[in-house]
């Protein structure tokens, strides 16, 4: 379809614009909501909560819950799929470049014989809990481990998560469910506004 056809039909164009307005308004509302819900109003906390990385963390946590990933078998499968994904990514240099990754990032993100048991043990003892390093592994293609850490620190200050140190020295990230709820409301609101055609 040529660009002219895209812009020719005013009714279609109006519907497109309505969709875009719904999407941008929903994303804006999401950011405003997590900032409102934050227990801390410190500038450095709010600054981190407004980043795309906070949205991506919320999306990941929402998906874990919405997809019902709760059993040890499921988190093991997710980690295995994650490792397979990395192996395939390592064979695809173009995609690696597209994602801004290099082989070292891939190696660091793999679940190994050291980190996999820790992931499963934490999940078994505290369902839904992932230690900070392993959470960063799952999110490696979206953000650096350092960005992940900073977002988690901000989320802890906001009261969205707890970070508790285990006896082995790992930092266990336990969600309080706030991020998942806000993300779910954002998604539901967006879907409903698109379905009804109501502009925000």
């Amino acid at each position, binding site marked *: 379809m040529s660009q002219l056809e895209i812009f020719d039909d005013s009714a279609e164009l109006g519907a497109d614009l309505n969709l875009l307005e719904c999407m941008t308004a929903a994303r804006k509302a999401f950011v405003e909501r997590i900032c409102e819900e934050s227990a801390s109003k410190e500038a450095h906390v709010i600054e981190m909560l407004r980043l795309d990385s906070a949205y991506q963390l919320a999306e990941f946590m929402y*998906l874990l819950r919405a997809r019902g990933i709760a059993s040890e*078998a499921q988190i093991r499968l997710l980690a295995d799929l994650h490792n397979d994904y990395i192996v395939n990514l390592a064979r695809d240099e173009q995609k690696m470049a597209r994602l801004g990754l290099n082989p070292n990032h891939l190696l660091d993100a793999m679940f190994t014989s050291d980190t996999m048991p820790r992931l499963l043990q934490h999940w078994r003892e505290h369902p839904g809990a992932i230690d900070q390093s392993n959470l960063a592994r799952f999110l490696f293609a979206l*953000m650096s481990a350092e960005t992940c850490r900073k977002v988690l620190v901000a989320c802890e200050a906001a009261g969205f998560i707890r970070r508790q140190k285990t006896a082995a020295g790992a930092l266990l990230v336990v969600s309080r469910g706030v991020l998942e709820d806000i993300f779910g409301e954002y998604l539901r609101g967006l879907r409903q506004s698109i379905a009804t055609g109501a502009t925000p």
Partner: protein
Amino acid sequence: MSRHPVIGLVLAAGLFAAVMQGCGAAQAPEFTQADEAVIANNEALVRLRASNPEGLRRILDALAMARTRQLLPRSEAGRAATSPDGTSPPFDPARNPDLVFLQRASPEAAHDLFQLLKQAARQK
């Protein structure tokens, strides 16, 4: 989203400045002490200064405006990325701390992660 937004931004600024020079409208930009500190702290900006000071001026203005609005982290470690054609040095976040925020996540990566979670959810 461009593969390498920082490089893209630099190139875009360079193109703009080149056009302005062609029109004879460009004047030598001035840099404050604060600008100098940011430039010295970011390898890509040091390189740009030699080749395109006007483009550098515009980037510094954009950074200052964004920082005024408190949108940017002051410093943040991130991932390195090589240039698309391999002709320029790789972007090193450690050497360009003020530009790291421009390194956006890929929608492709987000979609991949969505698919992994979808597959894992099939296991009961």
